């Protein structure tokens, strides 16, 4: 491993193979496409984050005194739409997945490289449409687009926003399609299903959801668009339509969507915990199958978003039961990750800090999901800040931390450089503290009765809101730091070498950055995933310290 500050005369790899904007915009190299996605979603992360800051600033005082009510409604709508469709859903699959899936299975590229590029262009076009919506007046339907509000009572860019998300959905579908075919058909010789890293299993499960669920979102949005423009009437009670039909169609996608967002993160965490514990993941098969179980069961619980919407008592009970069922595989994963650390050899590099943070915060968020699955409690807390806190614990405390975890872990492979470790750990800590300060008070204020999507609120909730906003500013600092030091590292970071972590996985067996076709020769796999006993075989002396 070379650790010199000056790189040796440059060998060819995927970054320096061709220069010029055309070589990037017309690339079919999955690694370059991953970086194109990285740029796009990072941009939208800051757009969505900016909206969040404005929201939190408005909520410093009970009165609506920073922005107009309509503006506030647009802020939370677009915060949700941007963060979900233009950041969370593509984040791990389209950035890390695109980069790593072919490498981890020993392939030269994804099955359909041109479709991969098309996926990026779809997201770009969708993003431009979204930007147009944002800059020319916004949309204020709430990210959930409930009817008849969105079809008959608003005059903002509803249809354009729906089209933007429709197109973004197809980007997601094609990524999922690509991954499924790639994982089925392009594994290197010897890379059996049972030897795949859990990152692959997670992305495979995610892809199934993307492929089966997203089209239903597409048709929901299409029907909303049709209803708005042509007055089709499918959701209009005055024409005999049923607004609840929209909710069923919408949530049939949007619940599995949350698993699209979290499963890839779980895959990252599995790989990282294994590496920094120097152990194979405890209960590998269970974790792998838990991913598939989450994907399947995730399709059966959508109406738990509708317990007070007017569904029948018996439907509510069935969905409550199924919602508890889907919690079981997630719990299994948390236990398995914890058990992986047992008798490991643990170090606290930045990726590991993020992974541990993920386990803690995802556990908290997931446990509050149990509260919501309990019908009696959900009636009280639904549509309050309790829900907002719940999903932010999972999406931000869970998923965004997992994304940061993965970015830091694979940054050396992607860029050939190390990020500065001290700053990495500092940022992780700042994010952890800022996050909890932002969102824990929201559980309290939600149970106390503060509804969500409120521009103005009762004064008794102010102190908790102030705490939350304070946390948000700390969180913002935490997210800005990596932006700065990742960019810094491209020029000044330590040269990483092929495998700075001595990690398991085919991606670490090639150079950093990798050559365009990933491997000099197609690898032939004869070992299981997470072969850390082999990788650490040089560490002689005592096998394990006596326990006790």
């Amino acid at each position, binding site marked *: 491993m070379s650790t010199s500050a000056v790189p040796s005369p440059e060998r060819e790899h995927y970054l320096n193979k061709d220069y010029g904007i055309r070589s990037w915009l017309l690339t079919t190299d999955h690694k370059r496409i991953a970086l194109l996605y990285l740029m796009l979603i990072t941009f939208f992360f800051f757009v969505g984050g900016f909206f969040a800051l404005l929201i939190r600033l408005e909520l410093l005082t009970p009165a609506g005194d920073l922005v107009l*009510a*309509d503006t506030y*409604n647009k802020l939370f709508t677009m915060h949700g739409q941007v963060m979900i469709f233009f950041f969370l859903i593509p984040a791990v699959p389209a950035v890390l997945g695109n980069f790593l899936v072919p490498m981890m299975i020993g392939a030269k590229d994804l099955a359909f490289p041109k479709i991969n590029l098309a996926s990026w262009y779809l997201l770009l076009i969708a993003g431009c449409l979204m930007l147009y919506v944002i800059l020319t007046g916004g949309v*204020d339907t709430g990210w959930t687009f*409930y009817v*008849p*509000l969105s079809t008959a*009572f608003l005059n903002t860019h509803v249809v354009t926003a729906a089209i933007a998300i429709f197109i973004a959905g197809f980007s997601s579908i094609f990524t999922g399609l690509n991954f499924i075919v790639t994982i089925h058909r392009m594994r290197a010789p010897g890379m059996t299903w049972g030897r795949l890293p859990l990152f692959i299993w997670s992305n495979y499960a995610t892809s199934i959801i993307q492929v089966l669920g997203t089209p239903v979102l597409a048709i929901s949005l299409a029907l909303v668009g049709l209803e708005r423009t042509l007055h089709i009437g499918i959701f209009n009670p*005055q024409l*005999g339509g049923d*607004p609840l039909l929209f909710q069923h169609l919408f949530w049939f996608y949007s619940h599995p969507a949350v698993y699209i967002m979290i499963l890839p993160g779980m895959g990252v965490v599995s790989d990282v915990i294994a590496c920094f514990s*120097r152990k*194979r993941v*405890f209960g590998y098969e*269970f974790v792998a199958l838990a991913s598939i179980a989450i994907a399947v069961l995730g399709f059966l619980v959508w109406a738990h978003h509708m317990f007070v919407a*007017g569904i029948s008592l018996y439907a509510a009970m069935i969905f*409550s039961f199924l919602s508890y*069922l889907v*919690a*079981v595989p997630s719990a*299994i994963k*948390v*236990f398995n990750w914890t058990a992986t*650390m*047992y008798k*490991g*050899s*643990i170090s*606290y590099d930045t990726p590991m800090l993020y992974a541990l943070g993920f386990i*803690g915060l995802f556990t908290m968020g997931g446990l509050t999901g*149990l*509260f919501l*699955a*309990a*019908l*009696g*409690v959900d*009636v*009280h807390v*639904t*549509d309050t800040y309790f829900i907002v806190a719940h999903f932010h614990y999972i999406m931000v405390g869970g998923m965004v931390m997992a994304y940061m975890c993965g970015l830091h872990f694979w940054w050396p492979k992607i860029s050939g450089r190390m990020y500065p470790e001290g700053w990495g750990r500092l940022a992780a800590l700042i994010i952890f503290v800022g996050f909890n300060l932002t969102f824990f008070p929201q559980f309290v204020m939600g149970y*106390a*009765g503060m*509804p*969500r*999507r*409120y*521009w*103005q*609120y009762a004064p*008794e*909730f102010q*102190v908790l809101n102030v705490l939350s906003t304070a946390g948000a500013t700390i969180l913002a600092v935490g997210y800005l730091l990596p932006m700065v030091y990742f960019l810094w590292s491209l020029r000044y970071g330590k040269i990483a070498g092929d495998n700075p972590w001595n990690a398991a996985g085919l991606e670490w067996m090639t150079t950093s950055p990798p050559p365009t076709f990933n491997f000099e020769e197609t690898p032939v796999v004869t070992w299981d995933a997470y072969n*850390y*006993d082999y990788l*650490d075989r040089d560490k002689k*002396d*005592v*096998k*394990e310290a006596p326990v006790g």
Partner: protein
Amino acid sequence: MLWGIRVWPERAALSSSREDALFIFLLVVSGLMVVLIFSLIFYFATRFRRSKGRMATQIEGSLALESFWSITPFAIFIVMFVWGAFVYFDEHTPPNGAMEIYVVAKQWMWKTQHIEGQREINELHIPVGRDVKLIMTSQDVIHSFFVPAFRVKQDVLPGRYTTMWFHAIRPGTYHLFCAEYCGTLHSGMVGSVIVMEPAQYEQWLAGGGAEGSLSATGQKLFQELGCATCHRFDTQGRGPNLVGVFGKPVLLDDGRTVIADENYVRESITTPAAKVVAGFKPIMPTFQGIVSEEQLVALVEYVKSLKQPQQSEPVSNRPPVPTTPAP
């Protein structure tokens, strides 16, 4: 309230402590889980810190452990599910004899209508110690009637009635919030539920309702809109006789039997063709757009008030088919 900070809603209804008990159980279980996981992680992270001379011990897994930590949580989840289902079932089963109040929601206010005739905007006066059932609809978009102190919430939909019930146990004034995003002033669609001692409540009731009771208003509308022309109180009408219909099963022309509840009555006025009573022709015109939601509420209440001695068979209101058209 703690130093002016609301950390827990007041317990003002029977449902409040029921729900709180379940919530506290969940809190305790979750708290224990968090403590368990966090301590295990801290312990493992320090105890098994990387050190020279010790390698990690590769452990494949353990079927016993996997079974344990799948089945045990699931068992606990079943308890949570059953308990939650009981609370929910209770919340969705209004007791017989509950006093009924109508609510019409619109952007961005709550209009409540007492049967005695009292109308309120953004306020709901109710007596303590009685079961109260709300029958609610929206004039425009979906809203949600939320009273944190009662721990109850129910979406209010356009085009149909949804119901909720509660039993207040403490006099006082409690927040009423709209809890389903409904446009510009969603956050302004707030008000109060004012729980009064029974005597005070009677006094308050007596002080208003200048237009008379809700069913009287409904009766007036019934005449003015021409309903009485077809829905005569004998068997000669072109439409079914509505006396005693409410709450009973009705046989429809396609063979189905439905219960004549508030939604049925409302639908019969706005979309009469949807359900046609057996033995009658689908000739009733629609009154959609002609009657407001508040007028519909009055008409529903009027139909409810048309009583008849108990009948044991489904009312089919099948008259002999008129040989000459009614005048």
